[in-house]
């Protein structure tokens, strides 16, 4: 019996070791992911800074190259990764920092875009989207689906999403400029118009006629088929 009890103890010790290694491995991999996020952000930051500098240096001449410096696609994928990390990782302090950084990058990208539009006479449309957690904003999840679907449909549409709760002075300034109230979320700013409450695909499409028109001209057959499908649903 003494011998038997040894097996119970050894099995317990091995199980504890396996458990410990699973936790350590999980920690290590999550750390790798967090540093991956950080490095993506650093790259974007570098790109934005470089675009800004290039733009200031070359002035009007830069308009020729400006269409190629589309950064928001990278920003979108980063946003997906950050929200995934928020749901799955435990290290919230680090994440909060990353999120602030990301918010700042979005604002910088938005401002650069505005400047480019102004100087080069382009008509890129940006949507600023303010959301908060699901317990405070029941319709934010749905609004997110609408914007994701619009972004897939119109790749030139630039969507900047901001978590209302992020404590960043630049974000507070943006909020106060457009007078976004936390009780009226979700809120969208298209052009200079503030729209509060849930907006459907059709509502937003009415606000971005230039993009819709351009998309229709590019692919007339596919688009008409697509819109027929969406009205059918």
């Amino acid at each position, binding site marked *: 019996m003494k011998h*038997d009890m040894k*097996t119970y103890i050894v*099995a317990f010790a*091995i199980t504890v070791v*396996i458990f410990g290694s*699973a936790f350590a491995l*999980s920690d290590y991999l999550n750390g790798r992911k967090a540093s991956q996020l950080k490095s993506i952000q650093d790259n974007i930051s570098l790109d934005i800074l470089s675009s800004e500098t290039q733009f200031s240096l070359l002035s009007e001449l830069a308009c020729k190259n400006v269409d190629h410096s589309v950064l928001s696609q990278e920003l979108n994928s980063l946003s997906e990764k950050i929200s995934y990390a928020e749901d799955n990782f435990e290290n919230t302090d680090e994440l909060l920092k990353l999120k602030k950084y990301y918010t700042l990058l979005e604002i910088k990208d938005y401002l650069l875009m505005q400047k480019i539009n102004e100087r080069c006479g382009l008509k890129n449309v940006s949507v600023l989207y303010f959301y908060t957690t699901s317990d405070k904003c029941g319709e934010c999840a749905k609004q997110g689906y609408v914007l994701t679907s619009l972004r897939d449909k119109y790749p030139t549409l630039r969507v900047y999403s901001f978590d209302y709760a992020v404590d960043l002075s630049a974000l507070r300034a943006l909020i106060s400029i457009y007078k976004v109230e936390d009780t009226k979320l979700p809120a969208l700013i298209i052009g200079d118009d503030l729209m509060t409450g849930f907006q459907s695909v059709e509502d937003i499409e009415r606000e971005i006629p230039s993009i819709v028109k351009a998309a229709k001209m590019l692919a007339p057959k596919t688009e008409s088929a697509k819109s027929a499908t969406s009205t059918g649903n």
Partner: protein
Amino acid sequence: MSIPANFFLYIITFLALYTQVFLLISFLKNRGQIRKDGELKHAKILPSATVVVPCWNEEKTLRKTVGSLLALRYPKDKLKIMLVDDGSTDKTWSIMQEWKNNPNMLLFRKENGGKHTALNLGIEKATTDLVGCLDADSFVDPDALMRISTYFSDPSVMAVAPSVMVSNPKNIVELAQRVEYHLGVFVKKVLGMIGGIHVTPGPFSFYRREIFATLGGFRDAHKTEDMEIAYRMQANHLKFAHSHSAYVYTVSPNTIKKLFIQRLRWIYGFINNTIDYRRVMLKKKYGAFSLYTIPSGVIGLLTVLYLFSTIVYQVGLFLAHKISYWKTVGFHPALHAPSFDWFFVSTQSIIILNVMLYAVVAVTLYAGKRLIGKRPKFSFDIVYFLVIYSFIAPAWIVKACYNTVFRKSTSWR
């Protein structure tokens, strides 16, 4: 997920992992002995044996069952085959008459009273050293009895269980069970080595006849008499062995419904026999049976239920999201395949733990196949096993719990 739910999940995973690790360590410790056990030896003095075959409406399989018994390589003067017709309403009794002149065979007919009563009649009439039983839907390997008899050379061994296999599996349900039975061979062998056997299967388990004089005969025991006798023997500190190379083939349920009824009876029997014998649970003096086998069985049931409810919850959540998405923006089938990014592969500790748990189970399955002399290779049986058992096992476990709470009994067929 909430903190208590997460905590419970970790506890369950820890216990499930512990039971598997324990099993593997016990196997590694005893592997030399297990290998030796697999060789066919002849006992110096062979014990005499009676095989009792309780029959209730077995006209379809009886001839094959008896045929396999008559083909056993065992001295004819030491072997008796006893067929007990337990009030069949088909041609079972008239088929039995085919062997009425065979000196090795004894035929009895009685009113229907249940399998345990037929077995008890056999025990009462038997005069041999050993008494074994064989369900009338099972067939034995010619060397099975010879292999089993060698274990009785040890005077302290009171019962020996064989390796039960699925007879001629053809459809998906039977192939899935074959995986489970292979896994069972390994588990039973290790349990046999550490004194933790909790069931002496209806097909071809043998007992020393003398034990019935002190313990009494078989009982109805929630229609799992082969489990209850093992519990009773464990409660009386009697020793078992498992002969992994003594093969017996059983006709397994070939439909989901039949499998459900059989497993409901088994799980109901496990729960209720465990309740009946709760006095011997978690006590050191009853050994591995009390400290390992039964607790790991309970952990197994909880794991299946918990994993199932988690999967249902997660799938429900995913569907709710998708439906809400489609309702909001309309249904657009994806035009391009989603791109793979390892970033979105979950690296939560619970997922890693579950992968590790499956890895340990895979090692167990590998060792089980090696033990029965099969070369382990991938087959689709394991996919059938995982699919059928993941989705249907929770149903029979829930029903067995429900029947226990509301005191509903189970049926044989």
